[in-house]
Each structure stands twice: as structure tokens, then as C-alpha cells.
């Protein structure tokens, strides 16, 4: 029997809800609050505000198979001489001063704009990114919430700085429920298909797809997803997507031309396969078996044995 695509997608979204991983989330939140407290204490004289929540959990578009609970610590303009000094200071704090037996010391990493932390709590691995930022001028953060970040060098990319605004990012997705559904579906696709397209890019292009089709967005879940997939297929190679927090930051430039072509081709192939056979939607958007209410004989996790090796 052919798959009811919208019904299936709804089941996919339901099975990927964060509510299913509440015990794990509680551990995350508890740990995040401890880290917040540690940063507050260490930088009481240098911070311009307490660390703020960022990442997909803060934006309410997280999925339970992969999510980020991140923190951003905003510093006063004169707290450090340079942005690099700021980034190194926070890294040194976690690698040398911060005491937590659950923090895996050898996995404290300098990432491009953040410090990566890994905690091992009762056998669960919990990852958290800490983003240090500095206000643009004395007293500016209070008014604009803008921050400058240090971007570390990576392979052939030199070190640089970038301006951001966490609150603007959160506000950008606020109350966009249709978009959030599709973003979550594409994050599910991304996670299961080892795609390394940045989530921020996915967010922006989906929001644009809905903006450009304002008044024409269908109500069925599959139709909405279809609209988004076709938009990416047709527009990704030419579209310019600006960071809502900083119009000088063209987010679409984080993908190279060939990466954009590949993404377009992946969307094209996905749509073709689903048009060929509606059941193929399950390959791209699988339910999270752990949290699906199974009907008798619905086929999930059926262990077929007719293949050979």
C-alpha cells in the first residue's frame, strides 16, 4: 500500500520530539546551568551579561537524534585587548581551571568560533559549545545585543572575526511554525544521510522559501516539504542569504559552488525517487524507531533475513 506521505512525515516529526528524551535533556540543562555558573563566577568583572542560551534547543528546532545546547558569553568591550585573547582565555579556563570530574579533559577543543566541551554523565556523552563574544563598543551590547566573535584559522582559511547577534537569530525563527517543521525534517534528513550542510544555512534557506511563496504555502505537510525541496533544488546555486544579525555576513557563501550544485542534485534525486515510489520517502525521512508507538505488524524493525554476504 502506498505511503501517505504527510501522515508519515508527521509520524517522523513526532518520533523526533525532544520530549522523548526528557531525562537526557534534564542532564543537559543541569550541566549547562553548572557551566553557566562557572563562567559567571570566573568572568564576573568582564562579562556584560550572564551567558545566554543558543543552539537548536534555544531556537526550538532541535531533533532528538542530534541537538545542541550551547552557551554564548558576552564580554565587555575592554575586557580583553584582542578577540583572540578572549577566545584563548575561555579555552584556558576550561582546560586549566574549571573543575568537573564529568568533563572529558582531552576532548576540550578549540573550534572555529567556540570551545567544544564533552561531558560523560552516567554513560551518556553530552556535548556543549561555548561561544565567547565581545560587545562592539563600550555599552553597545545593552542596546543592540551585537557581538564580535573570533574565528580561528582552519586548514587554508585564515583567522578572522565576525559579528553576530544570538537574540536576532532566535527571533528570526520565532513563531515560524511551518518553517520550523520543515527545518526539523531537513535536519532529520541531514543527520541520517551524513550531510555536513550547516544547520544555520538550512534554517535561512527554508525561511526564504516560505517568504518567497508567502500566500501560496500549502497546508499539507508533504506539500510544504515538497515546496521547500524544490526551492532548494532550483535556487540554492544562485541565492544570496544574509545573516539576520549582520547583513555583511553572506551565509550562503559558506557553501562552495560545487557544494551548492551537489545539494541541488541531492534534492533533485530525492524528489525523483519519491515521485517514482512514495514509499521511498521512508529512506530520506525515517521515523525514530525508539519513540514510535508501534501498531501491530506495521513493519518497523522487521529483521528480514533473505540477503546474503
Amino acid at each position: 500500500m502506498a505511503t501517505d506521505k504527510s501522515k508519515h512525515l508527521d509520524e517522523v516529526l513526532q518520533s523526533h520530539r525532544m520530549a522523548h528524551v526528557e531525562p537526557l535533556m534534564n542532564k543537559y540543562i543541569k550541566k549547562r546551568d553548572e557551566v553557566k555558573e562557572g563562567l559567571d563566577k570566573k568572568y564576573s568583572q568582564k562579562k556584560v551579561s550572564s551567558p545566554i542560551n543558543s543552539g537548536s534547543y534555544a531556537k526550538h528546532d532541535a531533533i532528538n537524534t542530534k541537538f545542541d545546547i550551547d552557551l554564548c558569553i558576552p564580554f565587555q568591550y575592554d575586557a580583553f585587548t584582542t578577540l583572540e585573547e578572549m577566545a584563548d582565555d575561555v579555552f584556558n579556563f576550561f582546560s586549566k581551571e574549571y573543575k568537573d570530574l564529568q568533563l572529558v579533559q582531552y576532548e576540550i577543543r578549540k573550534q572555529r568560533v567556540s570551545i567544544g566541551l564533552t561531558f560523560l554523565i552516567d554513560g551518556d556523552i553530552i556535548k556543549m559549545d561555548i561561544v565567547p563574544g565581545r560587545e562592539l563598543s563600550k555599552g553597545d551590547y545593552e542596546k543592540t545585543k551585537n557581538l564580535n566573535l573570533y574565528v580561528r584559522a582552519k586548514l587554508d582559511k585564515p583567522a578572522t572575526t565576525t559579528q553576530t547577534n544570538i537574540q536576532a537569530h532566535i527571533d528570526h525563527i520565532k513563531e515560524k511554525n511551518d518553517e520550523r517543521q520543515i527545518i526539523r525534517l531537513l535536519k532529520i534528513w541531514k543527520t541520517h544521510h551524513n550531510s555536513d550542510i550547516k544547520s544555520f544555512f538550512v534554517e535561512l534557506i527554508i525561511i526564504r522559501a516560505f517568504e518567497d511563496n508567502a500566500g501560496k504555502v500549502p497546508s499539507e505537510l508533504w506539500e510544504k516539504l515538497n515546496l521547500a525541496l524544490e526551492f532548494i533544488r532550483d535556487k540554492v546555486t544562485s541565492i544570496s542569504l544574509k545573516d539576520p544579525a549582520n547583513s555583511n555576513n553572506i551565509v550562503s557563501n559558506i557553501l562552495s559552488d560545487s557544494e551548492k550544485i551537489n545539494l541541488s542534485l541531492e534534492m533533485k534525486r530525492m524528489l525523483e525517487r519519491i515521485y517514482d515510489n512514495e514509499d521511498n520517502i521512508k529512506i530520506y525521512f525515517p521515523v525514530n524507531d525508539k519513540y514510535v508507538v508501534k501498531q501491530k505488524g506495521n513493519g518497523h524493525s522487521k529483521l528480514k533475513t533473505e540477503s546474503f554476504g
Partner: protein
Amino acid sequence: MDKCLLFNTFFRDQTGVKLLEEFFTGNEFIIGKIQIDTAKEPLLFNVEAPLSYPLSNSPLSIRFVCTNVDGFLHLNWDGSVCIHPEKNHDPAEKLINEFSLLKRWIQDYYIEEKTDSHYEYLITPFADGAKFLFTDISANFKKGDQGLFEYSQLTEPIFHGTMLVQHPLIIQKIGEHECCWGTFYKTLPKFKSFWFFIETAPVIYRRKIITNWEDFEKYLSPTQLKTIHELHGKTGQNHIFDYPILIGYKIPTTNGNEIHWQMIKIPSNQIPTYGEKAEKKWVGKCQDQQIKWVCTINSSYHRFFGRGGLCTKLADSKILILGCGAIGSSLAEILTRGGLQDLTLMDFDFVEAGNICRSAFEFNQIGYPKTFALEQKIRMISPFINIRSIQNHIDKRIDKPNKTNTLKFLNQFDYIFDCTTDMELCYVLDILLPTSKIFNFSISNKAKEFVCVTGRGNITETKAHLFPVDEDKPLFYEGTGCWDPTFEASYFDINCYLNLAIKNINDKIKKKLNATTFVIKTEMNDEVLNFELIDY
């Protein structure tokens, strides 16, 4: 037309060419002698063509052997010009082509003395007996440096009662610097002898290597000469080589300089040095004695796999193969021949007689654990592979403490190829979610389809969806009862799918594309075999 008449007429008709000796038919060749006038001095050539001319008498076709100059580029040790004429069964056309190639060589390399963009090794007459393989080592040497090097035999020197013309040996270590062989090869029994670094290539003339010890003397430092001299009266430690002496010098490459190593064999009764007293000091000298050069080959990784291999990202990755049956064993061989350097094999089973016809195992490996048998085979293929075999299976307990250990094991790999077709294992991997990229391979009965599923957490479902429902139940039972049917597919069925699958994955990774799930189907339509690869 009579072949001798053809040659005589042809060369008589050429401007600037003198036929010095008319062509005649000898026992093996049609032979003649010509002189060619050039802007420099005239060149003299003995011309030898096989009796089968214009067909070559493999590997030789016509040879123009220059008798009055040597050492020029593309001139072989025996004076023959290195030309590669096109095959042609028309004798007159072939001769025209060959002579034009000879004239081009004269113009480019004799008159203009052009140099090629690529370096050409020195022309060296090699003595039979051995072939030493080495890899590039990261070391800086200066003229006069010397020390001990270590080497090992790859095989016994006698094969079927006959001494091998090129007994293969590998150089293990030069001073403190190890050649980059895989761990197995580093454990072979070792012999020691001396190495000398002489800085510049030992040439008598252009690319022609020095062949007399007297000429070689100036390349050696007093200490190096003394080291050779001290061999007098000692007995060599190896039954083939009395004293192999490794000589290193710099050669130009496109990336700068590299060190090339050549080997000299010194028989214990022919030590080529003697001493003279000069100003009350012992001074080492070399005798008028022929140098016996022995063949060496730079077999560094990039040369060994230079003719074709996996893309760098795949070759440099850490790979785990789960299941070493028909698919897994051939996959291991394909990846190894592609230049993979870090491979782990896992299987709990043993080699059975019935496995041989469609796997990489051999008859004399029956009864061996599959992992061990495959490891043995794999390391015989590549000297660069570091291989680990685990005769076990993945722990399927998915409770927390056990899960953490299994995950830690799996996470050390970049890629996991699951060739077990064990759906329970597939399910466990979906639950564990290792950071490694998983490719799940399986073939349907009668080899109708090959399914490669990749993903994170969704492999079981995807496979259940894509794998064909086959009404043909397996029919082949190996007398083991109904619990152990096996699928029907030949070695060539499995390998044609497998090679296509690896090509698809490799090419995608090379182009930085996401290697996704795919199905390959074969079907005979109108007596034509059709392959269809469907990417998901």
C-alpha cells in the same frame, strides 16, 4: 619484397645516410650498419631487426645501436636508442616511422641535448641475483655520511630448484631512518651492511653510471674507503651477498630533491680497495676493477600505487570490515590493491571448502579462521597495509556499559563496511550510532541485485525497504541441513557488483559528494546484459 632489399633500398635513398654494411639475414636478426650525418659528428648505428619484422619478436622490434657516442638521454646501456614505434604490419610504413623517430632522437637529445621535465635514472648495467626495494625516508644526509643499513628477504632465493634472477629483498632501515613498510614487513629477519651517502650521482658521462672502482674513488670519503678496506679477510654474513653496499645520492624531482639509493655487490674475495702511504698516512685507493651494480627500486607508497588506486581520503582512512565471507573477503582485497593502509577484519567463522570458489581464500587455508586467512593474503599483496584481524563478532548487548565499550571500538574507524548481512547487527549499529560512516552491503539470491545502504540510525529500515523480496528460495544446501542454505552467486557475479560499488563510493568521495544509498541491478534484455545503478 625481400626484407634485406627493403632495408638496403630504404637507407640508400635517405639523404645524409650512408649504408656502411649491407643488410643480411643472420640467425636471429636482419643486420646492417649505417652512418647518419648530423650537425655534430656523424653517428654510427648497427641496425638489428627481428626475423619476424615488421612484427616484433616480443619485446624487441628494430634496434638502432649507436656505436660511437653514449650517455645521452634515452640511450640504453648497450647503446640502443630507446624508441617506441607504433605497431604496423606494413614493413615499408613501419620502417619510415621508426627512422623518423630515430631522427627525432638525434635532433632532440644528441644535437640539442634537451632535458626532459621528468628525471630519468642513470643507465646502469645490473648484475643478476637480486632486486632491493626501498621507500623514501625523511632524512637529510650530507656527503661522507655512512652507517649500517638493515635489509630482509621477501622470499627464499631459490624457486623450484633454480636461483631467482631477481631475488626480492627490502631495505628496512638506513641508519636510524626506517623505510615505510607495514608492521608485518618490519618484523622479518634482518641482515646488516654498510650504506654511504655520496651526494651526487656517480656518472662517468651524462647519465651513464660509473662502472669501474678507480673512477668511483673520488666519490668516496677517506672513512668510506677505509670501511670498504676493512672488509678484507672478513666473511660475508649473507649467502647471496658477500657485502651489499648501499650508495645514496640526490636526484632532482618535480617536488625538489629526493634521495636515490643504488646497491653495489662486493664479493668477499674481490675487495676493491688498497692502501698507499702518503705523508706518513694511510690513504685508501680503489683498484681497476669492475663495479657490480645490483638493481634497486624505489617502491614508495606513491610509486607502488601510482598506476591506480583509491582516492586519497579513502586510502588514508581507517576501515573495519565486518564479515569476511564472499563479499567481505573480496572487498578487503579490492581495498588493499587500492592502497588502503589501515584495515581491521572481524569475523568469527572458519574457511570451508565450499567458500573457495567465490571468495578471496585459498585451498590450503581451509580450516583457518577467515580473518586470519584473509590477513595472511592481504599482507602478501601490499607492503604498506597495517592489518588487524579479530576472530569475533560485535557485542550485540545494547545496555549502557557494554554499549559504551562497543561504541568506543567502532568509533575508531572512519568507515565500517558491514558485509555480514546480519539484520540483527544492522539493527544494533542503528541503535549504537557510531561516528563512523557505515556501508551495508548485500546481494540478493541469484545475484539479481546488490544493495548498498548507508546512513545513521536508519539502515535497518532502509534495507528492509530496498532489499528485493525474492520468491526464489536458496536451493544450494551443503549437506548441512535446512538451517544453512546459501545464496547462489558466482565469484564474477559478486565481484562485478562489488567493483562497481567501490567505484561509485570512491568516485563520490573523491568529488567530495555524499556517498549515499544505492542499488545495482542486472538484467538480460534482448540478450544484452544491462546494469542499472540507482542512487538514493
